[in-house]
């Protein structure tokens, strides 16, 4: 899946970030170094408070690092950029726009003419299987459907890098598995670099080329685990289960 010439290479250099919490400085990221390959799927896991969402928000340009920085295809990142799109935990749809309007929103905001934007939006609405609901309003959609609209909106701007912040965290178990399969399919079809935060280890193994485990304690080091499994992946396969055990061990749970 790697080796495209599309770009979407992310280079993270000596990245540090801390928050002040009740007068105390709380370091969440400590001199992190990481290369994310073009077209790869990197999944970030870690206990809560390990800074995984913070890292994603820095990549998105929504937060700035205290020191160190991020470069995309060699260009240092300052703020948000057209080559990146973010899928949040909540769908964040505009309730007054139809599904079509919401999916076209990202393009329209960038100045693409309405008709062209809607045409491209329809393609991605079909890709996430919601063609019949193009005229529906967000209040009429289920949680899973709404999240798929959010995914379609991000894909419509055709980003090089897709940043996902626990995108399936709020869905029920059944919907979640279906959506994981859908994300895997979209990722392989769209040829996009995907960086995803999750707290679901099985989800991480199902989707990732590499899993980044962020440490919780001071002085702990981030760890990368290659997931060397053929796709589409089989959750009950013995090697899948072994990866799960390995990740659980990382969290001291096995």
């Amino acid at each position, binding site marked *: 899946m790697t080796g495209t010439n599309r770009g979407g290479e992310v280079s993270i250099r000596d990245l540090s970030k801390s928050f002040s919490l009740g007068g105390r400085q709380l370091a969440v990221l400590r001199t992190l170094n990481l290369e994310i390959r073009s077209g790869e799927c990197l999944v970030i896991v870690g206990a809560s408070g390990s800074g995984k969402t913070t890292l994603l928000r820095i990549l998105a340009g929504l937060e700035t690092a205290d020191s160190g920085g991020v470069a995309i295809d060699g260009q240092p990142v300052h703020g948000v950029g057209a080559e990146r799109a973010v899928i*949040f935990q909540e769908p964040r749809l505009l309730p007054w726009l139809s599904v079509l309007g919401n999916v076209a*929103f990202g393009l329209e905001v960038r100045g693409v003419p309405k008709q062209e934007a809607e045409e491209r939006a329809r393609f991605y609405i079909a890709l996430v299987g919601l063609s019949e609901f193009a005229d529906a309003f*967000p209040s009429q959609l289920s949680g899973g459907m709404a999240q798929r609209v959010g995914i379609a909106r991000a894909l419509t701007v055709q980003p090089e890098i897709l940043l996902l912040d626990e995108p399936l965290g709020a869905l029920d178990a059944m919907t979640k598995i279906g959506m994981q399969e859908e994300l895997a399919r979209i990722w392989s079809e769209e040829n996009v670099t995907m960086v995803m935060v999750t707290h679901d280890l099985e989800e991480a193994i199902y989707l990732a080329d590499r899993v980044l485990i962020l440490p919780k304690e001071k002085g702990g080091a981030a760890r990368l685990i290659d997931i060397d499994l053929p796709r589409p992946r089989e959750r009950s396969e013995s090697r899948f289960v072994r990866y799960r055990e390995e990740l659980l061990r990382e969290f001291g749970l096995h």
Partner: protein
Amino acid sequence: MTLQHIDRPITIRASRSETGLGRDFLHLGGRAALRFLSRYGVLVGFLVLWQVASSVGWVNAAVLPPIDMIVAALWKGLAGGSLLGDIAISLQRAGIAFAAAVAVAIPLGLFMGQVRSVETALDPILQVFRQTSALALYPVFILLLGLGETSKVFVIFWATLFPLLLNTTSGVKEVDPKLLEMARVYGASRLTVFRRVVLPGAVPSIFVGLRLSATTALLLLIASEMIGANKGIGFQVMNAQYNFQIPLMFAAIVILAGLGLIANQALVALQRRLCRWSKPVN
């Protein structure tokens, strides 16, 4: 064999629905009547009680005339045209004041909601103004603007301004920051965020303000017309009372209630059209 199997249930069902048709209609009619009663039953009961109490003599009919006399006075005033001039001038006063309040409060409210420093600076004085009764200020306005139309329109404007201003401001401030961040991620400029996210998000709250202001406008209209006016519905209420034309007084009151209902319904209908996505709260 299969044919027979299919045939039988169909005939049974057809015959059943035929006999049940009349009953269904009856059932449907009964349901509609029930719904009407559950909604308007108390109102109808109140009117019937009034009519009976007044005509039988439980209450003084000179003070609370029966409904039919009020309706007759209303009909005479409207069809005869004697009340139409009053309605026109009242609508003009309330209309100009309301329009002016909309023109000032909505842009100012949007601005205040967007720029924190402006809101911080203006909030204390607005709170003082808002808590000062417009009726208490009416004598001041009369001193400043004279007893004519200007002071009347101004006092209505003053009172309608605040509900609309505060609701517009809070509507802008309460737009979901997660939606603002989403728009920012897609590279929306400040103006685009305002136009595509903030403004539509504030519309329901603006409508709450509009409906409050419309009610306030009618309230202040009557109060202002009771002082130094020789025309208008509020004047008619007072004047009819002085001249002991009690049915006419009630007719004027009924017109007022009607105007209030119409204004509210018009705003609800407009809101339904503008934002199908959010149901107006009644």
